[in-house]
Each structure stands twice: as C-alpha cells, then as structure tokens.
C-alpha cells in the first residue's frame, strides 16, 4: 500500500526531472536509478528546490576548536579549524587543525541535519547543535577537545545566520 506523504515533500512518483541533468552524471544514475530512489532519498535531493540547484557549492561548515586542554594527544589546538564542504568532505587546504578522526566523527550528525533542513527550506546549519566534542575524555573530561560549528559562504567566508536562505520559500 502506497505511503501517504505530505504534499510539501517529494512524492513517490516524482522523477526529479528538474535536477536529473545534474544528478545523473554526479551519481552515475540512469533514469531507472532515479525512479528506484526512495521518497526519502528524493527528498534529500529536494534541498535543491528549496535552496537552489547549487546550494551544496555555496556554503561550507567550519569546526573551530574552542577548547583543547594541554593540547590533546592528536595535537589539536584552540583557534585551529577544520573545514568541510556541504557534501561532508574535508577541505584540507582550508583546515589548519590535525584531521583527527575522533573530533571529526561527531560532526557527521550535523550533516544529516544540513540535508534535512535544506529539504525544509531552512538554513542548513542547525540552530540547536552548534558544538561538538571529542569522545576522548581523558581523566573525567580533562583532556576533552571542543569545537564550535558554523556555516559560511564558500566565496567570501561570511557567516550565514539567516533562518531562511531562500526568501521565496517562506
């Protein structure tokens, strides 16, 4: 039995024709593959309808280290940063912190939210979860590194705070 989906979201029979020219080469999709996608996956791509076809290229996520007592075992220091693109790839050339797997891994949850929020037409950066921490606690957390997360534009590196990035979507 077909699932009911709120009309705001992508429906099961939506073939994403408006973005097929972008998705097919990027993901090596055939037309049949596009049809195979679940409504949830199609909704993921629908962020392009809310924020623009190029929204993934317009922004970056920055993890700025705010705490690293005594420098952690991986050499992360306060003030350093790790930069990601919106496809959650590290941008090494823009990052000056060690690319520590322990500190970076918790950031993946932020990117689940960026795609979800984009599909809603919102600023992709969560307004709630703006800090991440390294799971390596040391003695009762004494050695725990912390980082603040923010969204910025790719071209000018200006912070992006607006709730709605596409005024027409309001």
């Amino acid at each position, binding site marked *: 039995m077909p699932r009911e989906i709120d009309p705001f979201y992508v429906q099961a029979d939506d073939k994403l024709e408006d973005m097929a020219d972008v998705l097919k080469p990027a993901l090596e999709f055939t037309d049949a593959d596009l049809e195979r996608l679940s409504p949830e996956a199609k909704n993921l791509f629908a962020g392009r309808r809310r924020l623009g076809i190029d929204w993934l290229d317009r922004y970056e996520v920055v993890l700025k280290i705010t705490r690293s007592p005594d420098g952690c075992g991986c050499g992360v220091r306060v003030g350093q940063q790790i930069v990601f693109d919106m496809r959650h790839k590290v941008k090494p050339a823009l990052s000056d912190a060690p*690319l520590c797997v322990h500190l970076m891994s918790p950031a993946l949850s932020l990117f689940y939210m960026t795609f979800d929020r984009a599909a809603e037409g919102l600023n992709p950066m969560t307004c709630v979860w703006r800090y991440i921490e390294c799971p390596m606690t040391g003695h009762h957390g004494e050695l725990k590194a912390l980082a603040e997360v923010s969204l910025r534009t790719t071209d000018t590196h200006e912070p992006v705070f607006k709730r709605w990035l596409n005024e027409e979507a309001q």
Partner: protein
Amino acid sequence: MSVKLDRSTLEACELHATVTRAFHCANKIREGQTFVFDMKGRLLADKSTAHLCLGMIAKLHPAILMAQDRIASGLHPISPSFNTFDCYDTGIDHGGTGKVYVQLSLVDPTSGATVQAWPVGQ
C-alpha cells in the same frame, strides 16, 4: 634482548582503508583509492587518494579505536574479525543513494608494504 625490526616502528606505521567497491557515491570515491591515518587516528590528507568524505571517515572511527585497543593489548592493530567497513549511506535500494566499502590494513610507510601479523612482544 633487543630485537632489530626490518620494518618501521608500529608508531610510524599507517592505517590504510582501501576502497574495494563503490557505486553511486556523491563524493566520487573510486575503487582502489585510500584513506590514510596515522596510528593516533589523524587523517593524512596528503597521503590519501580518496575524497575525504566524513560518511566514510566517521564509520572508521570505531575501527581506529579498536586498532588502538589491540595495540595496547600487544596485538596486531587490524582485527582478523573486523577489517572491512562500509560508509553510512545505506545505498540506492535501501533508502539511500550510494555505497563505499573499504578494507583496512597496516602499512609500513617506508616500504609501502602491508605489515602482516608479527609475534607478540617483538
């Protein structure tokens, strides 16, 4: 009695996650590419050939913790039971988009050779 090793020290070795299969990956990760980490778990961007996708990197975090635990116990860092991993994308037939699989190995950066198991205590 000291033992002269014919390989780099364990601390100088690297953990390589080599892509064994990839399809419909939005970050264009391809078979044969690698994610390279030092033994502390720092991703070595200049030695990695794959695009540095957090969806794969984060999935390797438990594997790196396990490798460090195995080292502390005097074992080879690579578990014989858990040495293949996949990314967090569930794939096109399971509500996601693509999928990447990797095989983990210990590599001597001096020779580029895979370091096989060695006797405990050596």
